[in-house]
Each structure stands twice: as C-alpha cells, then as structure tokens.
C-alpha cells in the first residue's frame, strides 16, 4: 500500500461471502452453547470442576453441563489437574480420538505450565504435546475464573470460521 493514498476497500464477492459469514455466525452460536466437555480429570482441580458443574456455579447455563466421558462424543477437552509423563500418552491418545471441531482448555496451572512441580515427573504444560485454546490459571482456579475461561472460549468459537460442507463453506 503506497503511503498518502487512501486504502482501497475490499471488493465484495457478493452473495457467497455474505452467506458464509452468516452461516459461520449461526454455526458458531450453536456450537458455543452446546459444548460437550470431556473432563480429563486428574488432581485437585477436580474439586473446583465438581463445584463449577453443580448448583452454585452452574455450567448448565452455558449448555456445557453434560460431560461425555468418551472422546468420540465430546468436543471440549478440559484437562483438569497435573499431567505427568506417565499420563501423557493417554492424554495424547484421547486428544487424537476426538473428532473435529475440538477445543482444549488447560484448567489450572499444572496443566498450563506444570505448576510448582518442576521436576522429573511432571509434564511442564500440556501445550508441549497438544495445542491449547484457553489457559485458566489458578491453583485451583476459583469457579468464577473457570466460567470466565469458558466465556472466553465461547467468544473464540463465535469468531471462528466453521467450514461444514467443504473448506470454503
């Protein structure tokens, strides 16, 4: 872009782009309010996961209440608690068994970076082996932080492209 000249507005491709963005918004809205979490629960953060799923801080409000304990039927992998090297192949296998679209939340500092267990046994952050969308810090995080993390994930899902039929649409 040469300086001094105004930027050219993008040339609209017409009806196709309008339809695909509306479709993305609609599919994004549907997906973000019907998350099926797979709670990959290991350690102390499980206590806060139980609290956030039950009556006082409900995840049912977001449609994310029903956990599916099989990776084949879930789309949100919540890694709750410390993952150590013995558990790492299991985590990788579970991640690979999930179908697209899938998102990953690293719940707690142990899943984010190993927490304060910086030693031979712990995997220092699950993003060393799988890609992560949202990191929720805290040891363990308060349920309000978890809800904030889920809402940020929902914003991310709403803003993504959702190709359904082929790569363009």
């Amino acid at each position, binding site marked *: 872009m040469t300086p001094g000249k105004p930027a050219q507005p993008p040339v609209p491709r017409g009806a196709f782009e309008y339809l695909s963005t509306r479709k993305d918004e609609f599919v994004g809205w549907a997906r973000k309010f019907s998350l099926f979490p797979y709670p990959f629960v290991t350690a102390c953060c499980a206590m806060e996961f139980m609290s956030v799923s039950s009556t006082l801080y409900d995840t049912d409000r977001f449609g994310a209440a029903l956990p599916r304990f099989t990776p084949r039927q879930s789309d949100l992998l919540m890694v709750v608690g410390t993952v150590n*090297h*013995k558990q*790492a*192949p299991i985590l*990788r296998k579970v991640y690979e068994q999930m179908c697209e679209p899938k998102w990953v939340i690293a719940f707690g500092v142990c899943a984010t970076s190993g927490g304060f267990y910086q030693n*031979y046994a712990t995997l220092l952050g699950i993003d060393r*082996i799988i890609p992560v969308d949202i990191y929720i810090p805290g040891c363990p995080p308060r349920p309000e932080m978890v809800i904030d993390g889920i809402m940020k994930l929902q914003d991310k899902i709403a803003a993504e492209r959702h190709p359904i039929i082929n790569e363009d649409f």
Partner: protein
Amino acid sequence: MSAGGDFLGEVQAGVGARTLSSGMAHGILVLDVEPQDLVPLVKDLKGAFGFDMFLDVTAVDWPQRRPRFDVVYHFYSTRRFVRVRIKTRVDESEPIVDTLVPLYGSARYMERECHEMYGIGFRGNDDLRPLLLYEGFQGHPLRKDYPKQREQPLVPYREVEP
C-alpha cells in the same frame, strides 16, 4: 501412654539381644539390625508381640556414608496401639534385603515403590515392576545423585509456533 511405653519396654527386652542397637525415639521403639536378621525379627514381632499391621518401608540415602542406604520399616500393633521402627543398612554395591511379602500382603506395593525410587532389591518379591514411575524410566529418582529436573518424556514434544 504409659501402658504402651511399658509394652515397648517388654519388646525391647525380648528382642534387643538380636539387634545392633535399640532405643526409644519420640514414642517409637527403634531397632537397628543387620539385613540378614531382619525377617526372623519381623516374624517374632508379628507372632509373639502382635505387630500385625505393616505400615511402611522406605529408604534414606546417605551418599557420603558407606553403607549408603538405610532401609526403614514401620510396624503398628492394633491391640496395643504402639509402633516400632526397624532400620537396616545396605550398601550401594549390593542393595538387597529379604522380602516381607509372605508375612504381610501390603508389603507388595510398598516394596515395589521403594525399589523403583531407590533401587533397593527385595529378594523373594518377584513383582518389582515400576509402580509410580513408568516402563522405560532409567534411574532411581529419589537417590541424591539423580538431578531433580531430569525429565524422561514418553511423548515427543511438538514444535511451538512463535
């Protein structure tokens, strides 16, 4: 607790002759034995004195000392409510003691853990697979010469985009 203390005095009088040293420490009777006297002493404690619960076996690493490892056992009597600690020493060149699996079922898991963490062999326990660690882990992490942060990952790390 004087009843417990009296009972421990009886135990000390009964088995003290077979130990290298014996004494009380913070309410527990501590017996120091040679490795080969360990199993007969434990059989006696279980049979004659009623120490029916095996609490724990662990080891302490003294790298500057020969023999290097202290193997430490704790027992509890559910009738007299007292504990006894047995310590024995093994060297790095031959860190083997006899197993207690025929006497106590709970010894299986605890000896496995002691073996993988310190490398102490238990003669007679045929199931010394890694329990808290995983297959393929080299070394014994609780020894003082194992660096704390030496990781042995099973899954290769992915490349992180900047």
